[in-house]
């Protein structure tokens, strides 16, 4: 199988702290790839480097045959992403958020209109296209972000905990959209999650990361065999231990802990 993501000896240091410690892995074209690990394992830092938001300290990343450091714009055109935290403009409508994305990605106008309708219908938000995003529930926002991330026909779709905090119905819907995408359009899916059953059911291959390193990578049967366990959850705990991980709060989490600040300017 042809590789669409190739990572070699990737390192990211923050001062003396090594967040990602020389990882190497590949993802094949059209694969659904689960990227698991406890909090603070280095997953989000890795995704940020794969998506050009963070500069690697050393190592190489190739996305769709483009180098992430030297060919940023080609890399950026190649993927779509749904971030862990919502990244929509609340004061714009669903359609305006889509339009904003389409213009930024230079999708020609006639294709844009058609594609926006298609995608909003796909995530069942077409009848809400003129509502301001601030009136949307968490699940609706997530669906809109999925639609938006697909607008420019990406080859790879990154999903950082796409189902976090959603009810089982919404989670089910979201996974059926994602599966559909891979089956019909051959898009490569790269996702993280803390729900082991999602990875177990959806992923073709699974990587488990901890302390900045990849502990294991393979198909579900391979992982179960290597760890001599019966479920992904057991394999995960076997590899990463039972201790609770504390992660330093990011700036946005610190802010959300102070709700009175929210209304001040935003």
């Amino acid at each position, binding site marked *: 199988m042809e590789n669409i993501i190739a990572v070699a000896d990737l390192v990211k240091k923050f001062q003396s702290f090594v967040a990602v410690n020389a990882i190497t892995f590949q993802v094949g074209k059209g694969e659904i790839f689960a990227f698991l690990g406890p909090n603070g394992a280095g997953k989000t830092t890795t995704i*940020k480097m794969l*998506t*050009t*938001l*963070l*500069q690697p300290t050393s190592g190489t990343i190739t996305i769709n045959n483009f180098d992430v450091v030297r060919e*940023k*714009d*080609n890399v*950026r*055109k190649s993927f779509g*992403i749904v*971030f862990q*935290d*919502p*990244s*929509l*403009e*609340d*004061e*714009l409508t669903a359609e*305006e958020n889509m*339009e*904003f*994305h389409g*213009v*930024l*990605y*230079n999708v020609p106008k006639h294709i844009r209109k058609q594609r926006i309708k298609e995608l909003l219908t796909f995530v069942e938000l077409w009848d809400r296209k003129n509502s*301001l995003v601030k009136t949307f529930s968490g699940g609706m926002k997530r669906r809109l972000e999925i639609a938006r991330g697909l607008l420019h026909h990406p080859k790879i779709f990154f999903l950082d905990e796409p189902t976090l905090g959603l009810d089982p119905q919404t989670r089910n819907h979201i996974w059926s959209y994602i599966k559909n995408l891979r089956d019909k359009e051959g898009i490569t899916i790269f996702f993280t999650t803390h729900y082991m059953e999602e990875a177990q059911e959806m992923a073709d291959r699974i990587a488990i990361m901890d302390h900045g390193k990849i502990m294991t990578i393979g198909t579900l049967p391979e992982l179960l065999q290597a760890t001599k366990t019966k479920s992904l959850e057991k394999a995960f705990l076997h590899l990463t231990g039972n201790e609770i991980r504390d992660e330093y709060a990011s*700036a*946005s989490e*610190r*802010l959300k802990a102070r709700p009175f*600040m929210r209304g*001040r*300017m*935003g």
Partner: protein
Amino acid sequence: MNAIYILWLRELKRYFRSRARMIGSLGQPVLFLLALGFGLGPVFQRAGQGNYFQFLAPGVMAMGILFTAIFAGIQVIWDKQFGFLKETLVAPVSRLNIMLGKTLGGATIAFIQGTVVFILAIIFGFRPDLTLLPLTLLFMLIIAIFFTALGISVASMLEDISGFQLIMNFLVQPLFFLSGALYPLTNLPSVLTTITSIDPLTYGVDGIRGSLTHTTHFGLGTDLGVLIILMFVVLSIGSYLFSKIEM
């Protein structure tokens, strides 16, 4: 070009949809015009300085622009924290264009704000000479761009909004109170003369006042020259700092 346009449009839509923000930001200029303009008017007149309202109105116009522009620039911190900035930063658009789109959007809002204060001042009794109006508008636009870019520069360096109060008290307020917006620059204590002459807003106020009421301290040419140079300096610094943002 399209990217700059859509970023500009987003700022404008946000502004026009938030009526509270529009009206709220007019409160302070109106208070200054009425309370100071009419309150200090008699003293000013007795000191032989003429009509205070005529003197003050251009200063308050500049104030309206200053506050709106800095706020619009600082908004980058909110974008950082509530995620929307990530959406723009992973798009195939250069950081320079993102910075320019945001700056022009914020500057347009600040310019509109300044114009509204201008109209309100006229309603309250301000009587400007409008022959140099295009020059007045140019001064307003330049300081709008300057202060929006300054706000973006500051926001690029800050992690979260806990530094917000710091910016208000140690940047925005001093910029305003140490400009010539509220008092004439002649016969000031020498320390104040020095400080006011390094405050960029001083040149903006002087330019607006000079083009509307023919009283200028530095001369319109100097005002314009200084502001254009400063504008390009801050735009360069701002786009450099903005390009260094990592999420």
